């Protein structure tokens, strides 16, 4: 009897996989799960280890994915388009937020800019290839302007911030938590956001294709744990806010505003979102940001999330 156990143990050890999860420096269920150690706990039950990797933004996720060093992550809409265009094999397995309120074009509180048309001839800061970038171009389009009519300045958020606050730029296309920080602390105005422009800037949970083919059950498992964290955030709002505020050392009012603007999902990817992604991809192709046409539906795989949610219901 005991002999059999040893063999089993040995086999288990051989198969012991390490799951590499990428996390960005943003607020969300992933951070809760990380702080609480839920992934470690749950994956240990199926004999897997967890390795966290912190990324500063979306694109490095794809560098790590391509190098087979990463299995899961939550990233924005633009990086997935770029990643797909670059031919990296990954799958979008769930949508984590719609980003309707989480992305906005900000102007200073006493800025003369009142409507989108006023952006003409003004300097706007944006990080190229970000969700804010997408939003800005759509806004320009909607206002009947051409990209050349606006002076677009490429800035990463932390560099855009002093530029925006010191008036070196007139507007800033940006996402959370910067939107909340600026509106709460600096009384910046939201000139437009995803909602007003009807532009989705969804976040996706992604997985590396090779990994998901080899360990489909772990993918489902991942989504289950993610769901647990999401529910925690939703149901224990105060506790979640306190946790975020402590970990990231930011004010609670900002955290709470961020959570308001950025509701967390863990849902199948709808046709609407796929369509929105296709628009983004086409638009980026037009801009020559990506160098080939892609079909955004091809990277969508809702099978895992469906299984996970079903299992949760039971």
């Amino acid at each position: 009897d005991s002999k059999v156990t040893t063999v089993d143990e040995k086999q288990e050890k051989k198969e012991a996989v390490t799951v590499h999860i990428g996390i960005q420096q943003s607020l969300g269920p992933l951070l809760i799960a990380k702080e609480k150690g839920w992934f470690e706990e749950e994956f240990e039950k199926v004999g897997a280890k967890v390795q966290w990797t912190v990324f500063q933004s979306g694109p490095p996720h794809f560098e790590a994915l391509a190098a087979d060093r990463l299995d899961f992550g939550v990233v924005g809409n633009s990086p997935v388009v770029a990643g797909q265009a670059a031919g990296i094999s990954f799958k979008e397995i769930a949508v984590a937020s719609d980003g309707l309120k989480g992305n906005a074009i900000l102007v200073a509180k006493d800025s003369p800019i009142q409507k989108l048309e006023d952006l003409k001839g003004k300097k706007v800061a944006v990080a190229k290839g970000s969700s804010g970038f997408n939003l800005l171009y759509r806004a320009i389009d909607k206002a009947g302007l051409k990209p050349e009519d606006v002076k677009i300045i490429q800035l990463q958020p932390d560099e855009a911030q002093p530029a925006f606050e010191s008036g070196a730029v007139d507007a800033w296309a940006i996402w959370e938590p910067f939107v909340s920080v600026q509106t709460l602390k600096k009384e910046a105005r939201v000139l437009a956001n995803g909602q007003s422009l009807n532009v989705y800037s969804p976040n996706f949970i992604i997985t590396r294709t090779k990994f998901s083919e080899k360990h489909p059950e772990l993918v489902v498992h991942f989504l289950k744990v993610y769901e647990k964290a999401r529910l925690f955030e939703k149901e224990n709002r105060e506790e979640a806010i306190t946790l975020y505020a402590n970990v990231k050392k930011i004010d609670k009012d900002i955290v709470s505003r961020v959570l308001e603007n950025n509701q967390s999902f863990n849902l199948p990817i709808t046709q609407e979102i796929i369509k929105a992604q296709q628009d983004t991809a086409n638009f980026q192709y037009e801009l020559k940001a990506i160098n080939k046409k892609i079909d955004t539906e091809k990277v969508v795989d809702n099978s895992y999330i469906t299984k996970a949610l079903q299992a949760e219901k039971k």
Partner: protein
Amino acid sequence: MSKVAVPSVNHDRHFPKKIAIRNLKVRTSILVATRGLILPLLLILVWQLTGTFAGISNTVLPTPIDIVKSFQALLLSGELWIHLKISVTRALSGFLLGASLGLLLGTLTGLSRTTEQVADPSLQMLRTVPHLALAPLFILWFGLGELSKVLLIALGAFFPLYVNTLLGIRGVDKKLFEVTRILEFSRLKQVTKLILPASLPNILLGVRLSLGSAWLGLVVSELMGASEGIGYLIMDARQFTRTDVVFVGIIIFALGGKLADSFVRILESKLLKWRDSYQGKSID
């Protein structure tokens, strides 16, 4: 010749010179330290005053007092130590690896023109490849763990020492080299007894620059999937516009760099006491 009017000089040679000299040394080093503090203190003063009166937003440029407060908070929570420890470990391992390779390759290329002609052009090309661009390759080859971080730091630390060692060796006096040939020094003795001591001033300079590079390399290396470290602390704080924390990081970088530098300079003054070179005009 008439008697000249010369101011009298102390003739009392029984004066206890030893004590006087020691006192003088202590006094001089205090004076030196004070002089070094003039500029930083002035800067801090102006900074605090503009912060208080010019009303620049805290998120853009926190005042020194704000920074000290954050510093204190980070220190008291024990967090800073964790970051510092891991960063120092990374920087030191990277430095040791890069610097020893730099010294080795610098010596090899310095000793042999042929090795230089083969290896140096490639190394010089590698020298100006930006770390930020190499990060993805490092992730590919060495993963997201400590290895790629340490290697990236080592890469930065390699070059200053390599270049300085090579140049130092090529600056060795040919006359002394002839002496070692006459005395038939073994190759090893030639290196240890002539070439290294003679190029020591340059090597130590290389060490200083390499230490700086290693320290700075932390920032880029800790962009690659780190969740601890001073570089991470800064980049994380930037994400959440905690400018005060960014400054704490900057100050730690400045102090850490200065500390390492001072250490090498003390070493320098011990190891190079045989030199008979210009020491600069002094007024103390």
